[in-house]
């Protein structure tokens, strides 16, 4: 005996789908195909450039017209390590973390001042905070380099200081958007329930802005991690970071595998940082609830 197998949707259709002829019940197969196609296209657009990078990082030899490397190996990695990739990686990591550790709280305070409190001249303050984005980095770095040299400022301090200024607009922007929808009534409520000012910050304020803080911290980290120009000009060669190694390697010939290894190394930390922040945010929410 033939048995008809019904899918769940057929057995238990949505109430709207039981009434043919309405706009909502019209088949949407074509739209779904379009959405999936577009998603795949976007994923390819983002991931495709990484494919040759990863392949080159693992290739000892890859000559035209071969589609894949003709000899696999770790020559690129060995050469990158020999050129100081490990300390450069740590320097970049430190720079990114220091910049984000300074720029995130500063941006948060600035955003709160502008968005929540009635600060005089909030408009001008906003313009000032966002000005670094409008100014060409080369001009700023060159101009400030002279001043910092005359002030005998250590190059590391100079680099961090300028990168913090560059990171501030991003952290402020993210936090300002968060504070735009933030309700200080929660803090008032917490205080009336007996929370001290510190408890209000740790138990109410920070958990409420945590997702925005994570986003701001990520952007701040990216500014420090990926900077090339300021580190080169102000650092005066004392700070060798991954972007500086990548640029120097890419400027030479026959370094494709080394450049690929360093480039892949430059991609990994931001992705890891993002994943950790995302996971921490989710874990915290689950724990609290």
């Amino acid at each position, binding site marked *: 005996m033939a048995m008809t197998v019904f899918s769940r949707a057929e057995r238990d259709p949505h109430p709207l789908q039981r009434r043919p002829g309405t706009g909502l019940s019209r088949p949407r197969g074509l739209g779904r195909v379009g959405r999936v196609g577009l998603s795949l296209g976007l994923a390819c657009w983002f991931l495709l450039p990484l494919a040759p990078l990863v392949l080159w990082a693992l290739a000892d030899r890859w000559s035209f017209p071969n589609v894949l490397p003709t000899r696999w190996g770790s020559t690129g990695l060995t050469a990158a390590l020999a050129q100081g990739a490990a300390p450069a990686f740590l320097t970049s990591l430190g720079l990114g973390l220091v910049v984000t550790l300074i720029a995130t709280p500063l941006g948060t305070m600035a955003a709160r001042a502008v968005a929540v409190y009635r600060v005089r001249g909030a408009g001008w303050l906003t313009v000032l905070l966002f000005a670094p984005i409008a100014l060409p980095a080369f001009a700023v770095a060159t101009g400030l380099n002279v001043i910092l040299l005359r002030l005998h400022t250590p190059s590391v301090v100079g680099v961090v200081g300028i990168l913090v200024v560059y990171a501030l607009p991003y952290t402020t922007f993210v936090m300002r958007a968060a504070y735009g929808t933030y*309700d200080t*009534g*929660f803090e*008032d*409520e*917490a*205080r*009336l*329930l*007996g*929370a*001290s000012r510190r*408890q209000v910050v740790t*138990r*109410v304020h920070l*958990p*409420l802005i*945590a997702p925005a803080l994570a986003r701001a911290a990520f952007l701040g980290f990216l500014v420090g991690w990926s900077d090339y120009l300021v580190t080169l000009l102000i650092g005066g060669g004392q700070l060798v970071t991954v972007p500086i190694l990548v640029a120097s390697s890419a400027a030479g010939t026959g370094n494709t595998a080394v450049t690929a290894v360093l480039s892949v190394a430059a991609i990994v930390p931001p992705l890891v940082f993002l994943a950790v922040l995302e996971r921490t945010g989710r874990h*915290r*929410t689950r724990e*609290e*609830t």
Partner: protein
Amino acid sequence: MSATVIVDAITKTFSRVGPPAVDHLSLQIAGGHCIAVLGPSGSGKSTLLRLVCGLEQPDSGRVSVAGQDITGVDPEKRGMAMVSQRPLLFPHLSVIDNVAFAAVVRGVRRRAARADATQFLNMVQLDGLGGRSSHELSGGQAQRVALARALAARPAVLLLDEPFSALDLELRQEMHQLLRDIRNLVNSTVILVTHDRDEAASLADTIALVNAGRLVQHGTVQDLYRRPISVEASRLMGGKNEIPGTIAAGTHYSAWGAFPVPGGTPGADGSGILVVRQESVEILTAGTAGTEAIVSAVQPLGARQLVTVQAGEATLHAETTAFRAVALGDRVRVRIPAGELALVDRVAGPLAARQPLVQNA
């Protein structure tokens, strides 16, 4: 735990040019009592509440609780809790942790705090919802949780800032009953801010009428409705009838007749305004006792109706049941019970020209 709250000549100004939000306002609330601070929007009633709980600092004046001046004390040390119009449940905490918040910040271990919170959730009839997120609650449930959270702090003074105004009528009535039930269980002094006269009358022992930052009148619900001390108080309580007239030898003369001055003491001659609730004015059929008048408007109010009658230039409003057959242009008799009259805004002095009198039949 309850405490007497004294607000002494408190003033708060937010703008240098504008009038004060709260202007030299004094109030005393007996321990364990429920007072409704009633006033229109922008009258300063919420500011008064924030001054009492310490979220705002007064420019001058003092706030005392249980005999202690707490004007400069931080909000978290005042022993108060507040429920606002928005429930303001912490979105990163579950329902039970919201209710346990006060205990946790006091240093109680989480497990004990949650156990304590459970009894308050039960009190607001939300047993079993402790594990939910605040996003999973309806408006009424969220407001119940907010109430449970405030009660779990065991406040000496519970502040309610229009807590039910965002709820629909049925839910609001449920919450009113819940609050009455809770007041039988806990003995906090309650300060309820509202612009709803019915809510104030339904829940409070006394009403403090506030307008433009000033205290207009403070008294029992009956006093506020039947014995307003000024035209302003009468209007704020929804009174529609003001009968200006002259006073001579203990009698008030007006278009609606001669009435003995309420209160028993005749006082000096001069002028004054009689006010009477529209609910107290009686519309009678023609040929009976009362002042003759013509119906000039009938406004339906659901099961009730507001009938406007005119005797010459004088106008009076009467609220009757909607089943009372009255039509525009009807000739009726109007009776004002003398016992329901209150004399306000009395001015002593030489008698002004008497208004033409309409003779009582």
